[in-house]
């Protein structure tokens, strides 16, 4: 806590109404007795109830102020000015979150100076108001009591000033020798200020080496575009314009870069309102089962090493159709082992300029080059894909890391600065980074945790969270955004800009000044102050994106590249293939300390709190293993033990593992969760490798899965049809379940006046990205319960994403279904509660009265959707003061023994109603967005007033795809579903 708090702990003031009262004169007392005869007795006593309450109120207000950590510099709120803070009314500030080598534009809700909720910024092209699970979870990361709190020299606590003085000494020394022996290993960034400072670093230390490395990166993509176009480009996809999409091992809807926009565009092109609409078609070839694979119309499980060969086959098939793919003529093949290559080629050729081929980041550069060449041949460049050169960005460079480690080992590095990176954990094990680091005299670690690397370095400097830092970013399309602090640093940490400023310029400068300097340089002329205010308000500078280009593929370059880097699987090694995937929740491990993300069920396997060795059913059978059995994975002499999880639809002879687990410096949340697969990674094959040996160990490791059952048991739960079937039977969804008309013996509530809330969930749009789950968790103060409780079926999420497989276990189709409280009109939970703790309100909501609940759990038993969640223990009891700051003050924090469930974000409904009432109007459509709806990048969720025929939700409920889940029970749910449509190619026969 800051020094200022001391001053604030003054006694609450005595408020008085007039000078006479202050004087406590007999005249005044007489006056009071006359005016308030009933309350007169109170005033005889100097410690009256009224006075007590006044004092209590004032001292509470002061105590409340103590927790305000408003940043010192002036920042501009998104909606209202900070001077107008009204207690209880949140303010919204725009900021941006640096991530990988791009960023997300966000708007953060702040309650009395405390950021509690993150949304996408509607103005910012990177999110357009939507968000992802990872961005939503950042408030919890901010208020993590395990974060690094102080500067450390070895074990010793030092101050920031100590470090500054120390560095200034070193700075002068290195300036003399131009940086010989100085090296920086940095995480990726995309920031004008950091880039500016890096340039001055380079100028001051021309002989120093600067290497950027992260375990998950788009390096292969950049190399691929370089091979295709001769220039290092970043592809920008427009999925909304693509009618036919082929994904080559790319999970573009969730784990690849720019996934929010990808999902939005994809959803747009897939949306059907009536049976006459057209929709896109997605083909995917991949090894593991990804979220994108779950959304595909045609999916083929092939090993990652075969993806290149598949692409060549496609090029060959296109060639046969008269479409020549540059650079491939020498290698064209036709391999019988791949299905539907010719049909795909015809489909792509039929959608010239409106098709798209994307390749995943773990595929080698050659595949990306070939994908670009195919897009070029199909005339997609400039239409569905644009390219841009990135600037102000530092991207991962694995060759650089290799030579850095070589230098460290040779002793030529005397000072190594690790800037926002954790190489001891995430550098491929073959490098032996920790050993190399021990040969460096001075090591400086700058990161948000005393992590695996920080525990071994000479110095550790705590890094501020982006919500407490000044900074700036460039998003995936290059839009320049500002990062503004929502709160003063909770601990003694410094921001990236400040640290970089010190390293580069040898003096400690405030982050605010550094960032302003950068923007001032970029905005010469005109009134900078007013532009700055506008940029602060919006969180970004409009029209600052990178220049989009439509380059042509350079035949000579790509031909040579493909000759040197053959696409066909030629490693010649026997053994299984191992595929390294980034975790959809923990990414590369940096979010391992975040309990929300640890407990977030994997979108496909529904596993929490662990990473596993995913393998196909056939492989598991031949190895004689089943779920939870531990296997030993051996690759190039290194080994790791992980539990097995059988993944239907995974390519045979392959094992998929996810990064981000097995942390040893992730403290009470992340330590010991899963295994670190970086221990198996090689530089030669960061994405996937062959030669894996798998052997069964004689032990098991219990995994916590939130959905044990795979199949829908033939029940009409997720209703799905092909586009063709939909056209023949437009009302298929409703007709899927036949029952007699359901009647009530009672007169039902008419809802003739006022509001009646309802929701639709479009299963056709939902891609299964989990953003809604974390949004709900953050909005509604949902506790995490830990692995054992999840394994016992006690996870608390109010909204969940169900996943069902259908078809063959080796090649299943997957559907997702969001389930939240359906707010039944005839709610079965209400009738069985003995104490009326759950009831219907006048607007149709099924509400939960926590104070009244005695916890019989009968309501949960009687809920056919099983959306109710019970506080089996006092999960919220042991929150530290810091963790408590994450909680949304608008939502009750529940106690042990009460039932809870989705409320349709009743606090948001109330806020909108109060606001409308104050403005003398009715709530109109769009005033209320639930947290899940707001986070959704594809607008799968629609909430509103179903009494209003013009509201979006009413219109959607009139779609012929609309159906009520379990309607035959006559519970009359207010949440209805819009059936899923797939668009398979009719020329491809199902196996």
């Amino acid at each position, binding site marked *: 806590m800051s020094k200022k708090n001391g001053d604030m702990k003054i006694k609450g003031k005595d408020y008085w109404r007039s000078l006479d009262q202050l004087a406590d004169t007999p005249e005044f007392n007489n006056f009071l007795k006359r005016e308030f005869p009933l309350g007169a007795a109170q005033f005889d006593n100097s410690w009256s109830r009224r006075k007590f309450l006044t004092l209590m109120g004032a001292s509470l207000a002061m105590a409340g102020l103590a927790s305000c950590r408003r940043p010192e510099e002036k920042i501009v709120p998104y909606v209202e000015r900070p001077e107008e803070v009204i207690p209880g009314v949140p303010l919204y500030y725009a900021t941006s979150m640096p991530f990988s080598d791009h960023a997300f534009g966000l708007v953060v809700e702040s309650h009395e100076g405390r950021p509690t909720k993150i949304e996408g910024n509607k103005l910012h092209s990177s999110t357009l108001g939507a968000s992802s699970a990872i961005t939503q979870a950042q408030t919890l990361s901010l208020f993590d009591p395990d974060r690094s709190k102080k500067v450390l020299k070895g074990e010793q606590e030092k101050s920031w000033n100590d470090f500054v003085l120390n560095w200034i000494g070193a700075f002068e020394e290195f300036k003399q020798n131009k940086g010989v022996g100085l090296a920086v290993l940095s995480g990726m960034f995309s920031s004008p200020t950091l880039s500016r400072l890096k340039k001055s670093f380079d100028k001051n230390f021309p002989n120093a080496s600067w290497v950027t490395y992260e375990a998950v990166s788009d390096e292969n993509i950049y190399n691929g575009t370089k091979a295709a176009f001769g220039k290092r480009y970043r592809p920008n996809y427009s999925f909304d314009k693509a009618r036919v999409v082929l994904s080559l091992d790319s999970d573009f809807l969730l784990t690849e870069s720019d996934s929010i926009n990808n999902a939005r565009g994809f959803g747009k092109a897939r949306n059907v309102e009536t049976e006459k609409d057209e929709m896109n078609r997605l083909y995917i070839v991949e090894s593991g089962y990804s979220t994108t694979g779950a959304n595909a119309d045609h999916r083929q499980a092939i090993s990652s090493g075969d993806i290149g060969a598949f692409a060549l086959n496609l090029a060959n098939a296109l060639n046969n159709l008269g479409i020549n793919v540059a650079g491939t003529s020498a290698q064209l093949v036709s391999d019988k082992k791949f299905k539907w290559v010719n049909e795909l080629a015809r489909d792509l050729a039929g959608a010239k300029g409106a098709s798209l081929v994307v390749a995943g980041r773990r595929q080698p550069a050659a595949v990306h080059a070939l994908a670009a060449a195919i897009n070029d041949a199909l005339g997609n460049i400039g239409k569905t894909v644009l390219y841009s050169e990135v600037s102000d960005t530092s991207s991962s460079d694995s060759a650089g890391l290799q030579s850095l480690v070589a230098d460290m080992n040779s002793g030529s590095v005397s000072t190594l600065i690790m800037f926002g990176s954790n190489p001891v954990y995430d550098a491929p094990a073959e490098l032996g980074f920790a050993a190399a680091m021990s040969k460096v005299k001075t090591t400086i670690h700058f990161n948000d945790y005393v992590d695996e690397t920080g525990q071994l370095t000479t110095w550790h400097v705590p890094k501020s969270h982006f919500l407490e830092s000044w900074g700036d970013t460039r998003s995936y399309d290059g839009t320049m955004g500002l990062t503004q602090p929502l709160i003063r640093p909770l601990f003694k940490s410094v921001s990236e800009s400040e640290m970089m400023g010190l390293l580069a310029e040898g003096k400690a400068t405030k982050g605010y000044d550094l960032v302003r300097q950068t923007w001032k340089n970029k905005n010469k002329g005109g009134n900078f102050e007013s532009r700055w205010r506008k940029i602060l308000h919006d969180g970004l500078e409009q029209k600052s994106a990178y220049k989009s280009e439509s380059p042509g593929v350079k035949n000579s370059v790509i031909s040579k590249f493909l000759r040197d880097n053959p696409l066909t699987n030629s490693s010649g090694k026997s053994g299984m293939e191992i595929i390294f995937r980034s975790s959809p929740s923990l990414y590369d491990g940096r979010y391992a300390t975040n309990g929300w993300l640890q407990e977030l069920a994997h979108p496909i396997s529904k596993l929490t709190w662990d990473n596993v060795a995913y393998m196909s059913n056939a492989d598991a059978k031949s190895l004689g293993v089943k779920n939870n059995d531990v296997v030993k994975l051996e690759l190039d002499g290194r080994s790791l033990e992980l539990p097995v999880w059988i993944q239907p639809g995974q390519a045979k002879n392959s094992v998929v593992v996810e990064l981000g687990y097995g942390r040893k410096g992730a403290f009470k949340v992340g330590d010991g969760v899963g295994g670190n697969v970086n221990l198996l990674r090689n530089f030669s094959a960061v994405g996937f490798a062959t030669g894996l040996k798998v052997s069964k160990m004689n032990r098991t490791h219990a995994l916590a899965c939130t959905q*044990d059952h795979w199949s829908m048991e033939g029940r009409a739960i997720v209703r799905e049809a092909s586009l063709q079937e939909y056209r023949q039977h437009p009302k298929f969804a409703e007709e899927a379940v036949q029952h007699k008309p359901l009647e009530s013996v009672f007169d039902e509530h008419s809802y003739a006046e006022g509001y009646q809330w309802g929701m639709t969930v479009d299963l056709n749009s939902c891609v299964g990205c989990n953003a809604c789950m974390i949004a709900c968790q953050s909005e509604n103060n949902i506790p995490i319960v830990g692995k054992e409780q999840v394994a016992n079926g006690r996870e608390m999420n109010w909204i969940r994403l169900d996943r069902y497989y259908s078809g063959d276990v080796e090649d299943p189709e997957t559907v997702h279904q969001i389930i939240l409280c359906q707010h039944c009109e005839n709610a079965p939970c209400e009738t069985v509660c*003995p104490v009326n703790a759950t009831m219907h309100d006048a607007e149709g909501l099924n509400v939960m009265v926590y104070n009244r609940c005695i916890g*019989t759990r009968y309501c949960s*038993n009687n809920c056919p959707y099983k959306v109710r969640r019970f506080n089996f223990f006092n999960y919220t009891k042991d929150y530290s003061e810091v963790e408590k700051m994450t909680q949304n003050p608008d939502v009750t924090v529940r106690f042990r023994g009460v039932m809870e469930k989705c409320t349709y974000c009743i606090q948001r409904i109330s806020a909108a109603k109060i606001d409308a009432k104050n403005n003398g109007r009715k709530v109109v459509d769009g005033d209320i967005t639930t947290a899940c709806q707001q986070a959704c990048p594809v607008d799968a969720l629609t909430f509103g007033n179903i009494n209003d025929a013009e509201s979006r939700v009413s219109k959607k409920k009139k779609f012929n795809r609309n159906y009520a889940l379990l309607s035959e029970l006559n519970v009359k749910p207010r949440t209805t579903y819009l059936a899923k449509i797939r668009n398979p190619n009719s020329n491809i026969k199902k196996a």
Partner: protein
Amino acid sequence: MADLAQTETKTLKEPAHHERLITGEPSFEHVTDSVSSIVESKTPKAWWVLFGISSSATLLLLVAIAYLFWEGIGIWGLNVPVAWGLAIVNLVFWIGIGHAGTLISAVLFLLRQRWRTSINRFAEAMTIFAVICALIFPAIHVGRIWVVYYVFPIPNQMGVWPNFRSPLLWDVFAFGTYFTVSLLFWYVGLIPDLATLRERATNRIKKIVYGVLSLGWYGGNKQWKHYEMAYLILAAIATPLVLSVHSIVSMDFAVSLLPGWHTTIFPPYFVAGAIFSGFAMVMTLAILARATFGLKDIFNMRVLERMNLIMLVTGSMVGYAYAMEFFIAWYSGNEYEMFAFVNRAFGPYAWAYWIMISCNVIVPQFFWSKKLRTNIAFMFIASILINIGMWFERFVIVVTLSRDYLPSAWGYYTPTFWDIAILIGSFGLFFSLFLLFLRFLPMVAMSEVKGVLPQADPHYAGNKQTYSQAVR
């Protein structure tokens, strides 16, 4: 069957002519002596051993409950979807046990089945103790015990009433009524015998305690007249409770909309099951008491055989209900219902289902054989098996929760140590109370037994005793 019919016709005749319900032709005095002496004699060692075991188990119950209140419901293996577990299983089980007592004391009394006299006190005591055990569970299984009084219709400043549509609220009233009526009925029946003990009391404390409890009973004609009327009225009040209480318990399940719970057969099937399990429990206890206290004349083979026949009848009814549930599930054409029953028999809890079927359906069928139903060892084992089976019946019903409508929400419930602890503890409490009853109160209704002795007939040839002799 012929034998049974013959017995029935004989029973309806004058006491002097019917078959002896009490064997060995004891005198009134002998009845009084043999029953009272159990209470009056020195506490046998065996009693201390048994009481030591059962009170330890009671202690375990108290520890389990204390820990539960301290830590929360999470110490049990419950989850979503299976939000009810052993607590509710035990509740239904113990309430069911209680039913046999009421049936024996009230229904058979009204039907003038006088063979009940030897076991009715015993069975009524069992009812009281079983209901006490049962009532623990609805109280402790709530999440917030400190506000459990919300279920009572207490006028309050918030103006909030309980929800009268909820079967759990019906339970509150049903259990409350049942416990009150059973207690009164039992106590009223005890009064003449308490007076006997008072008369026989050898020390002052006993005299005062029994004196207060016997409410000034002196055995006058008027008293007997009022007593018999009160007893008859209470029997009439208690009789519908035999049907209503377990019907209402069954509605906790039947009123829900879960497949496997939402069935109209539940009320009669639960009542039959309750009587079935109750008789099994009376049998277990009676055989033990008979062996321990040498009451072979009173708990004689004729009584035991009749009880076995009731078990055969109710067991067959329960078996019929099981079959009918399956049939209706299939006949309804409701896929969820069909799945629920197939899942019971072949799903993850199939083991529990087949324990239930073997114990409840197959075991009582052996009572068709006269040889087996008059074999003490066999009926003892059978009664225990039936109790196990009936406990599993409730278990099978409750864990139907594990797989309902949406397969995504399916789960599995595994009882934890604390779940088991309350089960064991509830048996401990039951037996502790029962042992205290055996030690301090007459376990056989002496006054009633005397009424079915041949001497009770005014025309009995050898009747030379006066009443005052009889009550001695």
